[in-house]
């Protein structure tokens, strides 16, 4: 099976500091990549480069397109969740899902299923009334809206209780079984089965 995304010799420097260099990895369907590094090691920058928010400095990104060859620009549905959750306080839980940028093609049933799956009972309650943990759950619910190809999640496990952590791992495994891949970042290795890439380097 061809990898969905190939990263070749990727290097990046910010303000004269080399963040990472000669990074090589492949994102294969159903497999995960975990990027591990301390603060300022360039995890977020790497994700943003992969997603085209920042221009590639040196190196190459190759995305698998439909004709089974590699295209320059991404042709796979990507899901991105940054440090902040992407949740609007003035929208209800349901609206946060139906009006998100990922909601295209998601039916009402799917939205309801997703919210139930993460354990949000009252779909119409405003997000401003919910706790941080519940907001986090809503943002996780969005993963289930569509069959995304690759999920790019920036630090999904920061500030979570054990219950939510096991929920995330469960959902990741569930989506892996469908062929989705996860690229996640973190300070230390998590319980997700993945290829680990360490960004920390001796300065």
């Amino acid at each position, binding site marked *: 099976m061809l990898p969905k995304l190939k990263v070749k010799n990727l290097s990046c420097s910010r303000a004269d500091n080399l963040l990472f260099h000669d990074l090589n990895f492949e994102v294969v369907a159903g497999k995960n990549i975990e990027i591990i590094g301390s603060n300022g090691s360039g995890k977020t920058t790497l994700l943003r480069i992969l997603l085209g928010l920042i221009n590639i400095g040196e190196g190459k990104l190759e995305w698998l397109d439909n004709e089974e060859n590699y295209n320059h620009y991404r042709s796979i549905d990507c899901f991105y969740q940054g440090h902040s959750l*992407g949740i609007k306080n003035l929208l209800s839980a349901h609206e946060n899902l139906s009006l998100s*940028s990922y909601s*295209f093609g998601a039916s009402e049933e799917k939205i309801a299923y997703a919210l139930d799956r993460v354990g949000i009972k009252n779909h119409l309650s405003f997000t401003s009334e919910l706790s941080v943990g519940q907001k986090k759950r809503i943002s996780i619910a969005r993963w289930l809206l569509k069959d995304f190809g690759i999920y790019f999640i920036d630090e999904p496990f920061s500030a979570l209780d054990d219950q939510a952590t096991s929920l995330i791992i469960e959902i990741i495994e569930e989506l892996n079984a469908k062929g989705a891949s996860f690229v996640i970042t973190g300070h230390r290795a998590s319980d997700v089965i993945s290829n680990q890439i360490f960004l920390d380097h001796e300065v």
Partner: protein
Amino acid sequence: MKSDIYNWFFLILKRDLLIAFRRSSTYITPLIFFLIVVSFFPLALSPDQDFLRSLAPGVIWIAALLSSLLAVETIFSEDFKDGTLDEFFVTNEPSFVLVFAKVLCHWLITGLPILLASAISSIILYLPASSFLPMICSLILGTFFMSLLGAMGAALSLGRSAILSSIIVLPFSIPTLLMGTAVVSSAINNQDYSGFLLIMGAMLAIGIPGLCLLTVEAILLNYE
């Protein structure tokens, strides 16, 4: 899955309008601010009718420019803070459409209240009824252009102080101010004003693609 560009446009518009309407201050503030600024002129200068009538075009336009820039930095800053802006940029849909939808939304929640407020101000500043229609036309074109400029200023100063975006934008708004007042004062003096309106329309026609593209570029700056 490729989706319809119109649906994408309306999705953003619906989302932003919904949020704006749940927080009524977004559309009340420009209205009230406009009326306060306008009412200061008779208080500070003179309540004389003829004097106010000659002052009215300028007063209304200054108030319109200031109040359209009042909440301009919120166009992108909130979405930037809670991460939804990144997500909109990551999808395969064109980011140009995103910016245009956000500008249109900003115009709907500030430009329309400004039109209402200017209608009220034209009464309290004794503007002749014949110049009412040209004033509204010029304000529609002018405030939309201001929203475009404001979006660019907001994108450039994302995460900075709110006043910065106004200072960036205000020098560039001078043609709008001059044309707008020219329309209204020509209408008061029974002169032909269509030329000025056409130029405002031309500025808008160039500004929509040009400024939206530059705004996209300016937003992407903030991710580096």
